[in-house]
């Protein structure tokens, strides 16, 4: 990361803290909004946030590791979520997930080589009545199948 990028992040952290306040209760909103802009929370920024909010950096890292929607390493430009819980599983969600893996050559990791998508196989996201569904960033696609899912993802 070059200096300009580091500065951008640092400045944004201060914008966030002046928006939410430096109290401990603001930590999660700050982390969430930082991540929304930069995709993940890099180590340097974790430290910046920790110092600005007077929290030990290890604790900030421990918070990130606790919550499955907070990330400390780079991710794809789009987050694709497919549910693996039983209702979706019985409706074929794991086959859809396999098709996505194959299409984007996700062999070991969850992020495609071109950085286009990160696939998350998640627990129930409350769309069981429209199963199987897929959430791409903040868009919900209901009752998908292999073909419709791939079509949506190719179009990203």
């Amino acid at each position, binding site marked *: 990361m070059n200096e300009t990028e580091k500065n951008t992040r640092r400045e944004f952290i201060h914008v966030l803290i002046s928006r939410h306040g430096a109290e401990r209760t603001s930590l999660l909103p700050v982390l969430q909004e930082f991540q929304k802009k930069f995709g993940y929370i890099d180590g340097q920024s974790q430290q910046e946030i920790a110092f600005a909010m007077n929290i030990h950096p290890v604790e900030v890292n421990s*918070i990130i590791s606790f919550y499955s929607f907070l990330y400390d390493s780079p991710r794809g430009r789009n987050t694709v979520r497919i549910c693996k*819980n*039983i209702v979706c*599983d019985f409706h074929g969600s794991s086959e859809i997930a396999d098709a996505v893996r194959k299409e984007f050559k996700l062999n070991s990791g969850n992020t495609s080589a071109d950085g286009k998508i990160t696939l998350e196989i998640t*627990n129930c996201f409350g769309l*069981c009545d429209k199963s199987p569904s897929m959430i791409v960033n*903040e868009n919900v696609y209901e009752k998908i199948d292999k073909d419709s899912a791939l079509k949506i993802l190719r179009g990203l």
Partner: protein
Amino acid sequence: MKKDRKGPVLFSEYKPGSALLKAAGMSREDILFEIKDSGLKGRGGAGFPASVKWMLTASADSDRKFIVCNADEGEPGTFKDRVLLTEYPELVIEGMIIAGYTIGAKEGIIYLRAEYSYIKEFLENKIEEYRKNNLLGKNIASKEGVEFDIKIRLGSGAYVCGEETALIESLEGYRGEPRNKPPFPVNTGYLGCPTVVNNVETLAAVPHIINNGGEWLHKFGTDKSTGSKLFSVSGDCRYPGVYELPFGISIKDLLEISGAENTKAVQIGGASGLCFPESEFGRKLSFEDISTGGSVMIFDKSRDMLKVLKNFMEFFVEESCGQCTPCRIGNVRLLEGVKMIEKNEYTPEYIEKLKELCGTMKIASKCGLGQSSPNPFLSILENFKDEIFGKHLNLNYDEKGIKKSGITAAAHC
């Protein structure tokens, strides 16, 4: 607001703002009385009387109090709060304001699960409408001194944060690890202040109770379970979706309404609930019989029940916060047991040991997650033992559980 939904309470006609204006003309005691009279119990699963929670917070001595709307809805198979938030947000917002006025709280927080972040902006716009109409903010409904505002906080993807004290930890900026109780949030909640944590559906019932009076809720449901319940129905049925039905409805009737055929099993209460076989479809959904947060997952005769159980146990292994041993280790052991059965590598004795472990987890776990995760293990293995153990004969073992090569399954655990 969608008009094609029908139900006795929540999905009945409602004029936005009406209950709020009525409540502003009532004393706090009168509102508490109506809520108590209605017999409204928490819809999040535990079924604690709403009026008791409100009364304890109302009488707590503190300058600062909070109303928290629990919209974490993480139990697998539950999506009714999503429907309320997207189609009936007025009920939820007004329920919170009325609760705030009643107990003397000026601040409300909606804890919205991260998976529902796509609803956040819509809700924020609704809240802003209420502010513009002088129904939120200072001097609500032109009533001097009545003050309340609502903000939304997003979760970050942790099922356990639906547990009320974990939710509070999370709001405070910590890992969402449940606290010991007591003290309860009604005394020592968010930032140490008295806090009411109520489920979305509990709060949504409040405006209707205010408009119609507490007694009215007794028209629906049973003696100990007044009113209606939202059921999130999914799985093998023609019409999955959210149904509002009076408490006391039988599993059988629910299956008929949702167009389920050839049903083998119904899981009630989500992953942490119980699984019922056909012989028990006459049982009723109410606090007296089967108490539930409303998740109903239907499995037809083609489904493999061991697969269902494995899926649930994987969920708990992932979602345990790891703070206490019975839950952290216990769930791993139960999942291992399921995998042993899957591979026909178990001894009946070891499965009995795991059932004993379930008893330990129920009494020794710190929060509801570890206390209830043994539910599916016990109920599925018991109610579907013929299917499961019939399919998975432990051919490698003799009747004493000794592996024919000489090692017992229990020995390598």
